[in-house]
């Protein structure tokens, strides 16, 4: 008892110190992103002067109407959309199979689906590049999509499988007992049940694909997705203000859906962020 009493003030001090360092680490994670917003409005065009010499709104319309940026954005959206659709189908099928039955190699499936995300991106990238070289497949829109879909499957799979496990099978049995066939059960029971998990999985898959740059470097050839375009701007800056605004745009495009996905799955541990 005595030791508890004497240790009390130091716990207090300790937790205050801890709070301060926790906040400091959190700021370290966020301040760089806020800076991008600030730099989108700077009048400085030649360097990254801090503090900005002046502020202006004129870069935003210029960036939005930049044809290169538009082309890259459009390619990114087309790639991410198709990759997401593929991931939704494959991920849901795999999750349903793993949930409903026991079979040989079940553990291996989860592992295999996770592999493209768990191994360094460069491994997936160079592996696909070497396969394309081996059987002489030319770079195309489809090679990008196939690469992206492969590492997106696991986020859909994780979300949907978690939902299946949480909701259990009794509803499905009840529906079948009441005379619904498999398709009716799927349409009226299963789909509404996993709907938000699918949505969250789709959002995460989309943003994963939308941002991806390492695998894309190996499967895109000369085509430029938006992240690759930004990357090119970093090596040879042609127009810093337009890059700044585009960077801000990307933060907004990816952050909002992710906040939405967080909300959808709030209270459950559906979204396996650490498995990214």
């Amino acid at each position: 008892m005595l030791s508890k009493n004497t240790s009390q003030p130091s716990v207090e001090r300790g937790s205050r110190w801890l709070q301060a360092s926790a906040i400091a680490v959190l700021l370290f994670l966020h301040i760089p992103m806020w800076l991008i917003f600030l730099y989108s409005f700077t009048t400085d065009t030649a360097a990254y002067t801090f503090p900005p010499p002046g502020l202006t709104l004129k870069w935003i319309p210029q960036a939005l109407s930049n044809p290169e940026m538009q082309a890259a954005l459009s390619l990114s959206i087309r790639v991410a959309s198709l990759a997401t659709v593929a991931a939704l189908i494959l991920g849901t099928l795999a999750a349903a199979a793993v949930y409903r039955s026991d079979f040989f190699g079940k553990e291996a499936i989860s592992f295999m689906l996770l592999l493209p995300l768990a191994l360094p991106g460069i491994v997936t990238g160079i592996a696909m590049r070497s396969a394309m070289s081996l059987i002489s497949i030319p770079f195309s829109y489809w090679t990008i999509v196939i690469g992206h879909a492969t590492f997106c499957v696991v986020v859909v799979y994780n979300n949907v499988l978690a939902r299946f496990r949480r909701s259990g099978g009794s509803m499905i049995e009840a529906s079948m007992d009441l005379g619904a066939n498999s398709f009716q059960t799927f349409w009226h029971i299963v789909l509404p049940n996993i709907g938000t998990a699918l949505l969250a999985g789709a959002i995460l898959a989309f943003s994963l694909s939308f941002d991806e740059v390492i695998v894309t470097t190996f499967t895109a050839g000369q085509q430029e997705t938006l992240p690759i375009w930004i990357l090119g701007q970093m090596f040879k800056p042609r127009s810093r203000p337009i890059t700044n605004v585009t960077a801000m745009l990307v933060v907004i495009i990816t952050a909002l859906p992710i906040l939405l996905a967080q909300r959808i799955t709030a209270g459950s541990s559906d979204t396996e962020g650490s498995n990214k």
Partner: protein
Amino acid sequence: MLSRVSTYLYLRPKLVLGLLLVPPLLWFLVIYIGSLISLLVNSFFSLDSFTGQIVREFTLKTYAKLFETSNLQIFARTTIMAALVTIACAALAFPLSYYMARFATPRMKTFLYIGVTLPLWSSYVVRVYSWKLILAQEGIVSWFARIVQLDGLLDWYLSLPIVGGPSLAISSTGVFLVFVYIWLPYMVIPIQTALERVPKSLIEASSDLGAKPAQTFRNVILPLAFPGVIAGSIFTFSLTLGDFIVPQLFGSSAYTIGRAVLTFQGTSNNIPLAAAFTMGPILIMIVYLLIARKLGAFDAL
């Protein structure tokens, strides 16, 4: 009609399982595992140095190249950087995770959780780009150093060998900082998960038995959180090992594994050497994962 199909399928669960499994399985076996196998196959080919064509005959020549001094240095340099980044991430992540797991109110915890996962999921390229702004010669770090009159110290630091460079934006310190920033969230989440699982009763028992908070922390909490640190380190280590963008943007001309692979397959079209090179990080990661499993990291994922 539909209900007849439904009955037919209901009576044959194995068939349904097959129908469900075939598309994803086919995709992964053909595209992903197939690619990995082609990587392995390619690593046993070689590049004809005269024609620049890939010679599709079995040889160990390409692997032998890995053991040239300059290439061994690339492996050493990248592994050391990955280790340093991992240690720094763990040191920074721990207080945040600890606070999240043990002191934060539920509302605060949700806020912090989103605060950590948002950068995790937001654009990698843009987050890298933001450091271009920060570390630039005329950027915020130099500005801050001038204000607190430490610019002399900064110049002195940059003049040092190994860690220094022409500016922070082109130095191994810059590479290190950006890596720590980019991968930090991958470390916070697993540590927090591990800390959440430490039973409160154990901590109370420890203090009832007379341990000071520092002793409880060292002897009870830290060992139980360690698998979380290892789990997080899998991500930070593997991601640093394979990344080629950060060293390319912020590093000197010295190669890392990722840059070497990119250059071999790109400019010289030497896919065999790139493939053999990739076996390095794969091997390092396999060893790392085996050690991690021994230390119980997979329970913390």
